[in-house]
């Protein structure tokens, strides 16, 4: 006899691109996940600046649509939803804030204290308060998973923790920001200056109107901090990273690099000896880190398995949702 799938109720806090992508991915995958993993994922609450919607039996598509258009919000705050609506997992998908981590930090702390697991795509809280959050989770017997914070759909944290368990990790080097990769790739292809290609990237929606977080290496640095803390057991924050961005890269430099057999990429590097650095680096053309467009890539140097390189889409709502979904399922199928 087939047992009834376990009901897993989730709330989504922050309903922008990523939060919306999670709802969409769940809608598309709900049956498949129930069949394959015996987990019936239900969205019981969504909270956003636009308002809050709640239904303990699972929100309908209609209700979710209405929230998007700003109709019928409940008379509740985000923290009320996290604290008072019965659910197992809070998905935190508000935008990253590297100054103080808010509002995500408060959402995560509240969720853990209310006995919820946390799955997040928000880098700020982890980049600033990693240790504190992990200790709180351990104390409450809950999990925080955050695969979506580094490399989007590209698996890296669970790859190291699960598939490469038993290996010592020597270093991780990679391209962790798709916007910078796109700009550098286009500069090489077209021989155009940085400012020109940046404009093109902004027109195509690949770079933001204020691109400074991406092009100055801040986003890469924040991701690197999460890797340093979660994989290398360091206790660092974003302020500990040596950071240089790509704004000074010239077409001539790319040409000279090309003549010498290299490309220039913005590389984040962390190792077990204390290196924690983001900088434009020369990458040999035949190195696996030489990937183009908006792709992300990381080479994990291990003591047993040698070098493992993963390549994937670093950004995008469905890609982030993929990582979040795998974290949700992972909480229930891990031993």
């Amino acid at each position, binding site marked *: 006899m087939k047992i009834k799938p376990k009901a897993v109720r989730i709330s989504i806090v922050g309903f922008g691109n990523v939060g919306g992508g999670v709802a969409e991915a769940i809608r598309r995958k709900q049956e498949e996940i129930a069949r394959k993993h015996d987990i019936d994922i239900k969205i019981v609450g969504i909270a956003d600046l636009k308002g809050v919607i709640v239904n303990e039996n699972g929100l309908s598509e209609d209700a979710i649509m209405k929230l998007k258009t700003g109709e019928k919000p409940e008379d509740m705050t985000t923290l009320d939803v996290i604290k008072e609506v019965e659910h197992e997992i809070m998905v935190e998908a508000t935008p990253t804030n590297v100054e103080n981590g808010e509002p995500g930090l408060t959402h995560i702390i509240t969720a853990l204290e209310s006995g919820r697991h946390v799955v997040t795509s928000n880098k700020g809280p982890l980049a600033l308060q990693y240790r504190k959050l992990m200790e709180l989770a351990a104390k409450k017997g809950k999990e925080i998973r955050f695969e979506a914070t580094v490399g989007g759909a590209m698996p890296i944290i669970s790859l190291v923790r699960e598939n490469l368990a038993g290996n010592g990790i020597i270093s991780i*080097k990679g391209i962790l920001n798709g916007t910078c990769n796109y700009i550098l790739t286009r500069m090489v292809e077209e021989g155009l200056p940085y400012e020109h290609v940046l404009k093109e990237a902004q027109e195509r929606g690949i770079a933001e109107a204020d691109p400074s977080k991406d092009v100055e290496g801040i986003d890469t640095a924040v991701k690197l901090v999460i890797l340093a803390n979660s994989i290398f057991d360091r206790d660092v924050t974003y302020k500990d990273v040596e950071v*240089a961005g790509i704004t*000074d*890269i*010239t077409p*001539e*430099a790319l*040409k*000279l*690099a090309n*003549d*010498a057999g*290299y490309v*220039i990429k913005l*590389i984040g*590097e962390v190792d077990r000896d204390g290196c924690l650095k983001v*900088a*434009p*680096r*020369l*990458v*040999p053309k035949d*190195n696996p*880190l030489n990937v183009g467009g908006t792709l992300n890539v990381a080479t994990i140097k291990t003591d047993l398995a040698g070098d493992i390189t993963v390549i994937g889409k670093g950004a995008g709502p469905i890609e982030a949702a993929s990582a979040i979904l795998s974290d949700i399922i992972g909480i229930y199928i891990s031993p």
Partner: protein
Amino acid sequence: MKISMDIELKDIPGQLVLALKPVSNLGGNILSVLHQRDKKTPSGRIPVQLALEIEERGLDRLVERLKEKGVNVVRIGKERLKESMVVLLIGHIVHSDIRETIDSIDSTGFAEVVELSLSMPGVDKKSSASVTLSAIGKEELKEALGILERTVNKKGIMVISSI
């Protein structure tokens, strides 16, 4: 230190082993052996090109031992700077005294700037350069990169090093 060496062997069996043994006996490491059996010298000997690594003080003894065994040593080439890397510089490279930048490496005695390509798109614009550094060993090469970084960082020049 890396050495290239041309030797000539008698055309009788066992000569190659006879010539290579002293290298390992003296703590050297053979990198490559090119044994050209079909190219005899006018005196009927067989030319062999060797590349090997050996301590500088072991080299004289190696040549001595080869001669004792009847091996002709016809040429020794020393390649002192065996490690190289390319780095890029971006900034006002020329106008911030490029001479001093190069000297900071060359004056170390263990590393040199062996190649420099410069691209200057306009007087008021930043230049870009690719620089090849060579050094006598890996550690020395790393140190040379550190010296270069410290020298040019003061001048507001960005250094892009290899992964």
